């Protein structure tokens, strides 16, 4: 069986920071189509701050995710601060006690994040927001893991669920956020939050996969 050693927190977190900072302009561009064009600015601001604050430290995954959560909550504001803040805080809390994560524990981490997020927001799948990425991705991951697929396969399900969910927002009419102003005209464009969520989940899957170790049988 494969597992993730949670000592790789700094490394995994840096990958999340990098993908957001690298996609700053892309995210703003996506937001520009039906929002106000600042999603990349907002996200990069929070993630960059977090990257700076953990630099040179070697953190466990729970600690690293917790730092990300509090940095986002303390620096972004708006809706994204608390939403991504809760997501990562929920993930952090779910694995506080773990030294290693197997596929099931990793799933508990994802579910912990989703639950925390849903505890703070009434947003639903179909509203055209990050939940449209997050919910199918976590569902697909859990289904794979519950069906006994191995860790890499479950991570692949996470990636594919995220891609599919993100893509699903293209046809949705926005019911929340600025894009809701456009009604029908919000169709035909991806949702910026769904895109950033896809980037984060895919990157999380990728870097987790890189760190997977085989348990001494």
């Amino acid at each position, binding site marked *: 069986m494969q597992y993730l050693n949670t000592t790789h927190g700094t490394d995994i977190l840096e990958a999340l920071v990098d993908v957001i900072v690298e996609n700053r302009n892309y995210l703003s561009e996506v937001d520009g189509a039906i929002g*106000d*064009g*600042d999603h990349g*600015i*907002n996200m990069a601001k929070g993630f960059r701050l977090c990257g700076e604050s953990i630099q040179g430290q070697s953190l466990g995954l729970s600690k690293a995710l917790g730092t990300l959560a509090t940095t986002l*909550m*303390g*620096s*972004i*504001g*708006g*809706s994204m*601060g*608390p*939403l991504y*803040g*809760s997501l990562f805080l929920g993930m952090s809390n779910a694995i506080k006690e773990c030294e290693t994560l197997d596929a099931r524990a990793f799933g508990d981490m994802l579910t912990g994040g989703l639950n925390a997020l849903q505890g*703070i*927001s009434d*947003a639903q799948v179909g509203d055209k927001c990050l939940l449209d990425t997050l919910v199918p991705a976590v569902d697909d991951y859990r289904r794979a893991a519950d069906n006994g697929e191995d860790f890499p396969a479950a991570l692949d399900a996470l990636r594919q669920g995220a891609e599919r969910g993100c893509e699903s927002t293209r046809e949705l009419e926005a019911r*929340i*956020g*600025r894009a*809701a*102003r456009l*009604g029908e005209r919000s169709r035909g464009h991806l949702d910026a939050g769904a895109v950033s969520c896809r980037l984060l989940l895919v990157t999380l899957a990728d870097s987790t996969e890189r760190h997977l170790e085989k348990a001494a049988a």
Partner: protein
Amino acid sequence: MQRIINDPDNVVDDAVRGYLRASPSLYAATDHPRVLKYAGETPDKVGVVTGGGSGHEPAFLGYVGEGLCDAVAIGEIFSSPTADAFLDAFRAADRGRGVACLYGNYAGDNMNVKMARQMAEMEGIDVKTVIARDDVASAPADQRDQRRGVAGEIMMWKVGGAAAARGDDLAEVIRLAQKAVDACSSIGIGLSSCTIPANGKPNFSIEPGHMELGIGHHGEPGIEVAPLTDATSMAKSMCDPVLADQDFTGGEVAVLVSGLGATPNMELNLLYAHIADRFEAESITVHRADIGNYFTSLEMMGATLTVMKLDDELKPLIDAPARSLAITR
């Protein structure tokens, strides 16, 4: 974008520095760069906190002062303050008698206040909230919990602030602030868009020769985009849904007409003349009318109307003394 700013990304911090320098008798800094507290002596009373996105000046920070709010959490332009900022505002306002957090119904604010409140409870600060939902255009009366908060928030701050100032306890401040904003029905009419400095382009668009009835303070969609009418018709379009929302007939009201930013005061007063005519026709007595830029949306053109039903409990609180940038009486 014709603005008086430096780095567009730092507009809010730069402005906060200006407010602190300009009004040292009103504002004191706190440990949090996005939290200001009232600089004067605050007796042992319930703390009153508000907060919200910037770009609505004098809201929110203009309502910090004597007989009003004790601390304010300041967000980016049109974006909720962080949970941390709300928490620090709670800390700044708390005198051990609890904090009334009086704010408007927006997704971001709801989430950030909720989180800040959880953290505050852990520190032993008792925070209760009232969430303004006075914009009749944002949802029908039977879905009032969906409604946005707009200029009715001012009435909520005035009443809650006055109740706290006279020594009411937290439960009573909350009851009265809730009663105040429940007594309010508001609606906006937008005549032009506005530009967020960091974005550099108009936030949405209203075609010249058109207007948007029921528009929100950030350009949220209204009830109807229609050809621009004269002030007489605009007054009717605004009064109709407001007067249909609550039964004001035969009663006494406080009226607030706020500009959205760039509409000159003379137009607001001109509009008010027609609103006053209508009220007279419906036997509604205007106890007081405040006309001016009380809750804006950067440099949008347009106006909002807020009507508040008064009774013997609310009237003295509305009339009570206050000193702040936005209201001094």
